[in-house]
């Protein structure tokens, strides 16, 4: 294929990747920004979202659109509820201590993943897209649903922006992030905000997963890759900085799409993980980092 169409296809792939990645990375970023903890189970919330989406669409055979819409609503809700309970029952007990939280969320990673193995089984299962049409470019074809994922992700991101900047919950979140003690003194229920933000982070991951489920198959091990990618995005973007994370998601999604067309994807991943380590060491505030996030 010629270079032009080649890059065009790579960019489309990159945009789809970036769209989903920005949702899940935003979730991780939010949690880190407000709670100051790293949620290692983030990828499993993503997987859980996809599994629930599959289950819903499976329960409504022949009605992919209805199934998808129901999943788009219910899957994040259920995942968010589970995350909220996990925060109140586990993370609150260890006072959101950063290091203990990593260990605890590693434990949660296994619990969720293995529960999915028991309940959902070890097979990869396809989920029917809500609608399907084929886009024929002169050089190659492309899935219309994939293109729509980019738009849907953008709409969801706008919604998140609205919640953070225009609602009471968003205000509480920003206040808690800036100064936990002050927030507490001003009567913000910090414990609840923590739980809600942890849930919101998981919900964003689940949303990304619902969008991607009809493209890729649903599998109990599908959470590991988005976790690593989200990590990379959040670190490069500057821990806790939402704008940085979104920018990084776009750049990394696009890079991943383009670079892995020229090089082995394994090599591409290897380089990006090393890059993350170096960024953390040399520029802990991230490449696009700023000290005042949100």
């Amino acid at each position, binding site marked *: *294929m010629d270079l032009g*169409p*080649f890059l065009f*296809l*790579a960019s489309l*792939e990159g945009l789809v*990747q970036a769209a989903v990645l920005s949702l899940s990375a935003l979730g991780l970023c939010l949690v880190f920004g407000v709670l100051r903890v790293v949620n290692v189970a983030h990828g499993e919330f993503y997987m859980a979202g996809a599994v629930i989406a599959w289950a819903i669409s499976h329960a409504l055979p022949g009605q992919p659109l209805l199934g998808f819409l129901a999943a788009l609503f219910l899957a994040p809700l259920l995942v968010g509820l589970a995350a909220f309970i996990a925060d109140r029952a586990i993370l609150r007990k260890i006072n959101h201590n950063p290091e203990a939280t990593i260990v605890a969320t590693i434990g949660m990673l296994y619990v969720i993943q293995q529960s999915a*193995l028991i309940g959902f*089984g*070890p*097979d*990869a299962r*396809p989920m*029917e897209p809500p609608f*399907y049409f*084929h886009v*024929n*470019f002169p050089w*190659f*074809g*492309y*899935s219309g649903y*994939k293109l729509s994922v980019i738009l849907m992700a953008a709409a969801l991101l706008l919604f998140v922006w609205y919640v953070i900047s225009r609602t009471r919950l968003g205000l509480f979140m920003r206040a808690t992030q800036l100064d936990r003690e002050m927030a507490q003194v001003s009567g913000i229920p910090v414990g609840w905000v923590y739980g809600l933000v942890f849930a919101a982070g998981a919900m964003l991951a689940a949303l990304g997963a619902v969008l991607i489920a009809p*493209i*890729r*198959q649903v*599998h109990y*091990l*599908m959470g590991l*890759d988005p976790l690593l990618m989200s990590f990379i995005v959040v670190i490069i973007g500057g821990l806790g900085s939402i704008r940085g994370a979104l920018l990084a998601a776009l750049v990394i999604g696009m890079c991943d*799409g383009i670079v*892995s*067309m020229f090089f082995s*994807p*394994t090599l591409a991943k290897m380089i990006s993980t090393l890059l993350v380590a170096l960024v953390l060491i040399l520029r802990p505030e991230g490449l696009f980092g700023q000290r005042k996030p949100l």
Partner: protein
Amino acid sequence: MSDNTDILADKDKRKSLRKLAGAAGIAMTAPFSPVLMGHALGSDRPIKVGMQLHRTGIGASYGRWYERTAVATVKLINEEGGINGRPVELVIEDDGTDPKRGAEAIEKFATWHKTDVAYGTLFSHVVIGSSPRAGELKLPYYVVSEGYHVASGSLNRYVFQPGITDVRSQMVSMAPWIAANLGKKVTMIFPDYAFGHDHRDYFSAAIAEQGGEVLEMIPIPPTESSFTRYFPKIPRQTEVLYHVLVGPGVLTFVKEMGQFFGTRDRPRIFGYIDSLEAVDFATPQLEFLQGTHFWEAFPRYAQPDQTQHDQYFRGQVGVDNNGASVNDPRDISTYSHMFGCWETLFIIKQAMEICGYSGPEDRQALIEATESLTEFPESRNHPQGGKTFNGKIHQCFGIQHISRVEDSRLNVVHTTSIEDGLYEPEADYTQMAL
């Protein structure tokens, strides 16, 4: 469970230390096995077959059907009087489709379950990781893997593949038809590990022999989940796109291939059924496969000339004429592989009967008996077709089918003969010490 008594029961020679073990609480640490343990050694002791199963990991969809087939076969053998008058017991350990756990499963079979043989592994990296342990523990190990590693001589005398043809033979037998009917300029997409490398090495050699060439090789990491980015690497002058993939991403792979080609001109497509094993051809977005070809060892959709053996096999395992579970038409089997589990168990039975196998002390005789086999005629026990067996390289050779996709089903258009798939053996396991 009965584990504590079991430790004591078959450890008579260590009776004197038994109390010490009890006192130290060692017996408490005994693992709990999924099956009831057999009792003390005796003539009524069942023949234990340790099945190394891909219950989890990337081989899970195969594992599920391998298990069903093995269970059905054991049931049949037991209904017919077992082996040498003794019942057969299947002991299953999950290997997670992981070589390291595979090796541990072999150890568990040899020393804990004390199975007579190990059996049933599909994924070649698990076979390769497990073989040395089987060799050193002197546990006969019958794999159903398709890989060339057994026949290549790189494993050891305890490893056999008597129930399924290896990939190299499959390719040697099919390359002439592909070159003559589809084209000679080939691009290959294959998984980037042992099984895929067999394809890479032996198909490119086989097609070169037919005057063809491989234009581009596109290896895909086994855990990949997104594939569109690989397709632009397919050169424009490609006549035949040869694809084979395994793992959880196969359906995505085939769908994205369809999306990429769209309705434009595209090369002819020849796939290994592995790319769609356990996947329904009637899945939306697979319509583009119409008119493409697939290799099948054993036709998934019952053909007009279906043999009675095929029919019987489907009935016993619980598969309908579309290759799906009789209980759930959406649950598609791995029909081109799982027959190997059936046939291999009957070969184990045959070999055990030849050497009058009575227990682990006869394992070496079992190896020699298996090596002495030469032919498995088409029969109920060998429903996929007749096979020859080369005892020196521990590998069997059978027929292959090339099928065309027509209206979301596969119709056989060409069947190779056993002779088509023969190649010069490169090893001789019988020279190795037992």
